[in-house]
């Protein structure tokens, strides 16, 4: 009976140990998975950032900066175009009005 008890107790210990190992393996696996996911997200975010803003002090950054400079300058001219075209025709009505100086039918 003692042997049986002892064997029974030892068997239980092995099962417990295996269960604990499985649980620990699961926790480690989940942890690794989460870490991997975080790393992937971080890398993706880093890659996206590099597409919009190159690291400072690089030729890519200087290229971007000079391109933005040119685009901003061209945009300033384009934005002013509508106003200038409008102003370039602003005297039209005044000159046309000269033709309305009289109504000959009223003579």
């Amino acid at each position, binding site marked *: 009976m003692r042997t049986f008890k002892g064997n029974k107790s030892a068997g239980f210990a092995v099962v417990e140990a295996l269960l604990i190992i499985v649980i620990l393996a699961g926790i480690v696996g989940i942890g690794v998975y989460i870490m991997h996911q975080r790393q992937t997200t971080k890398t993706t975010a880093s890659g996206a950032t590099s597409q919009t803003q190159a690291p*400072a*002090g*690089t*030729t890519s*950054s*200087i*290229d971007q*900066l*000079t*391109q*933005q*400079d*040119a685009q*901003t*300058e*061209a945009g*300033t*001219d*384009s934005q*002013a*175009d509508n*106003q*200038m*075209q409008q*102003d*370039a*025709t*602003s*005297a*039209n*009505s*005044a*000159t*046309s*009005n*000269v*033709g*309305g*100086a*009289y109504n*000959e*039918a009223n*003579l």
Partner: protein
Amino acid sequence: MKRISRISSAAILTGATLSLMPLALTPVSSFALSQSLGSGSTFCTELPGKAMNITNQINTLSSKATQAWTQQDQKLATDEQKVDQDVATDRQHADTERATDFAKLEAKATTPAEKQAVQTYEAAVLNAVTVRRAAYDAARQAFRTGLKNAIDSRRSTVTSQIDTFKSSANAALATAEADCTSNTMTGTSIRQTLQASLKSARETFQSERKSDDTIGTQAKQLAATRTAAFHTADQIFQASLTTARQALKQAFGSSSTSV
């Protein structure tokens, strides 16, 4: 007696009718008065005052057109100043940011060769920026000069049209006044001739004004030309930057990814 009475009644009626006819035909309106010859018509009497009103009105509106041109010049000058200020601000901002990038780039150079390469790169970038900006300035100036020339040309045309309009109207009024003085035409005839002449002068002016209204189209074409010049300058600029970048990376060798 009855016959005599009837005859006398008819005679009285006829006589009364005949005596009233001149009264009925008496000119009581300006239209009727204009049937009179020349200076005797109401039209001719009122013509000098009306002619003066027309001349004054033409001169007043002509002056307003000139004032509109002055205001137009001021508006365009303001537009140009705003663009110049915005561009200057943008360039200053870009220069500051580029200087910061240059400083960080210089910090990465460790060997004399790398330091020299960075200096060369920076000089090339600055030169490319200067060339691009000069091209932009030239294109912008060409746009403004073209627009000013188009406006000046149009003003010259309109001034000539207004002068012709004034001359035609004044000539028509002078002819009408002369006709009134000569006393050979009726007021109605003089009036109709004047109306036809003034109508012709007005319609000719208004027709010309519609046909030469192309300044908006010209401004758009000039803007398109300027934008095309910008693109050309951008392409040259990008090519210069690529060449400078490749030279720098070559100098940095294995650590070229850091720059």
